[in-house]
């Protein structure tokens, strides 16, 4: 039977070409579209690689009237330890890191300063980018971003003035410059908090406590990240300090919670496609393919009516015919699937060479627009190669889909054939 099926398909390859191509197309579309969807999800997580977390929490602040001295960057409002403590109790939260991002408008020039706890995960991630020197051991030591150091002719061991205080440069840190929470100078969190606490200009805008921070990096397990985000949002909205007023009587800003999903809308690429669209396209293609394959199979059966009549007349039972048609269909499915798989692998390799650009929200890597000749330079964009790969799950799914299409068409075909009366076929054909 297998031999007959193979000969039939080879000798009349033109008759079956359409079905095989349709099966190949379904395989290609299901694998490629879904892998593409996953790749964009994965791409949206890439900015988080810089921070060793999956959720970023910030709070909107107010713009100071006097822009001088030490200020909270981008007017981010302080986040209290009490809120962080409540978030840390959420089951799905694995880890929390904090930082304090400051803008220092010194007389000589503007500096972005980041207070870091070197023992938390964010601090450890930053420490891994140390290219020379050591991480600060005392509150009077700082790391400097390498490009910033080169621009300002800074060297290890030299002193640097920040808001009237002298700090020793103990090392250089190498960052790409377009990372989330990029900064020029990195110092101990405690010292940054003290600096912020002492700043009169800052305290006029937002009431800052010595243990406050303005960026919280939360690491939540991926499958439960949505649930964790919801709980974080609940904690944020129920924060009692929301109801208060700033020292100038302004409204206290809302919290911003950034997750990888926040970045999905920021992705721009040639083949960007949404999840819903992927499902709609996959469904339309599968249904369309099933209809085309069914039509083609029925047409082929009509073409072979006489042969099936001959087979019945020499003793093929319904189940023998079903087996024959089933084998023929299965071979078409296998060949179409193999073609589709090769095309998918080729498409995925090609797509892996395309790049995606992700616009980082300004608040996550802020720089004062008014200090730049071209304000657009403050916009941070990350460019990555599309992290697409051939997913076994979609290979299996596509095979199951085309197998179902094959079973349906095979069933329809044999149903038609088994209605044939051999003598009628012989008499009228």
């Amino acid at each position, binding site marked *: *039977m297998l*031999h*007959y099926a193979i*000969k*039939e398909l080879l*000798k*009349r390859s033109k008759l079956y070409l359409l079905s095989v191509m349709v099966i190949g197309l379904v395989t290609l579309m299901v694998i490629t579209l879904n892998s593409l969807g996953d790749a964009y999800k994965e791409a949206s997580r890439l900015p988080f690689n810089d921070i060793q977390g999956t959720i970023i929490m910030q709070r909107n602040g107010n713009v100071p009237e006097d822009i001088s001295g030490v200020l909270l960057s981008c007017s981010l409002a302080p986040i209290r330890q009490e809120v962080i403590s409540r978030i840390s109790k959420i089951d799905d939260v694995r880890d929390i890191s904090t930082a304090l991002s400051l803008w220092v408008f010194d007389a000589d020039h503007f500096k972005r300063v980041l207070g870091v706890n070197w023992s938390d995960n964010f601090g450890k991630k930053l420490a891994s980018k140390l290219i020379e020197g050591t991480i600060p051991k005392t509150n009077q030591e700082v790391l400097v971003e390498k490009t910033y150091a080169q621009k300002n002719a800074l060297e290890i061991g030299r002193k640097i003035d920040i808001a009237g205080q002298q700090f020793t440069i103990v090392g250089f840190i190498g960052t790409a410059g377009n990372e989330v929470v990029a900064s020029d100078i990195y110092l101990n969190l405690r010292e940054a908090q003290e600096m912020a606490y002492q700043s009169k200009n800052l305290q006029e805008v937002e009431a800052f406590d010595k243990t406050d921070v303005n960026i919280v990096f939360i690491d939540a397990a991926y499958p439960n990240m949505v649930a964790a985000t919801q709980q974080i949002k609940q904690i944020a909205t129920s924060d009692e300090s929301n109801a208060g007023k700033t020292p100038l009587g302004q409204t206290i800003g809302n919290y911003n919670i950034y997750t990888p999903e926040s970045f999905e809308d920021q992705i721009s690429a040639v083949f960007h496609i949404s999840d819903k669209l992927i499902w709609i396209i996959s469904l339309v293609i599968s249904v369309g393919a099933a209809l085309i394959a069914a039509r083609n199979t029925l047409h082929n059966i009509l073409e072979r009516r*006489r*042969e099936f*009549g*001959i*087979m*019945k*007349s*020499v*003793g*093929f*039972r*319904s*189940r*023998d015919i079903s*087996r024959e048609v089933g084998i023929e269909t299965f071979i078409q499915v296998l060949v179409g699937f193999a073609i589709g798989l090769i095309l998918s692998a080729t498409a995925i390799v090609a797509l892996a060479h395309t790049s995606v650009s992700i616009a980082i929200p300004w608040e996550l890597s802020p720089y004062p627009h008014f200090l730049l000749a071209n304000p657009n330079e403050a916009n941070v964009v990350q460019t990555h190669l599309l992290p697409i790969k051939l997913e076994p799950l979609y290979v299996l799914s596509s095979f199951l889909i085309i197998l179902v299409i094959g079973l349906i068409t095979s069933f329809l075909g044999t149903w038609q054939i088994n209605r044939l*009366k*051999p*003598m009628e076929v*012989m*008499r009228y054909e």
Partner: protein
Amino acid sequence: MSKIVSVNQLSKTLGNIRVIDNVSFDIESGEFLAVQGPSGSGKTTLLGLLAGLEKADEGSILIGDEELTSMTEDQLALFRRHNIGFVFQTFNLIPTLNTLENIALPLYPERINRKDMLERARKAAYDVGLSERLDHYPNELSGGEQQRVAVARSLINEPKVIFADEPTGNLDSKTGEKIIELLHKLNTEKGQTFVLVTHDDKIAKKSSRIIRLIDGRIKHDK
């Protein structure tokens, strides 16, 4: 000789026409029976009924010990595979299979290994004088050769009876004669029972027995 086919009060209606009307007769093993009659007399329908390709409305057909009229379609198919050979006027070969594979076609659904299957087909091909054309496809064979393939295919299962419906109808007279000679040779040498529908009196006269049908009834049985 033993009785191999027994037909009793067989009737078949197609549309409003009673094509076979209360027909009864027996066929002995090793007989070469010719069925004759004008067009529309019911010859082909009778052959179809005897071969289990069509179901009767009334009466019974006994082949060997098996009653055909009570069988389901699948039982009939299995019965045909093991007991019946059929040769059609238009050869009815599968165009994508070569000579050897066409001869072996009735064995395809059987659980026989391919080597044994083709060996049996090769033997049947030898019996009909087609040993030189085993790899040829139907479109590479002459009409006479195609009909020989059909005869070999009908022989492959060593059937109790071979039914042939106008086997020379699509052949020139010389080739037709050779096919009839072949059938007679198989009849005499192997004792194969044949039931043959023909318009040709010359072919009928060579048969051991002739049944003449008119309007679905036996008018002559000699």
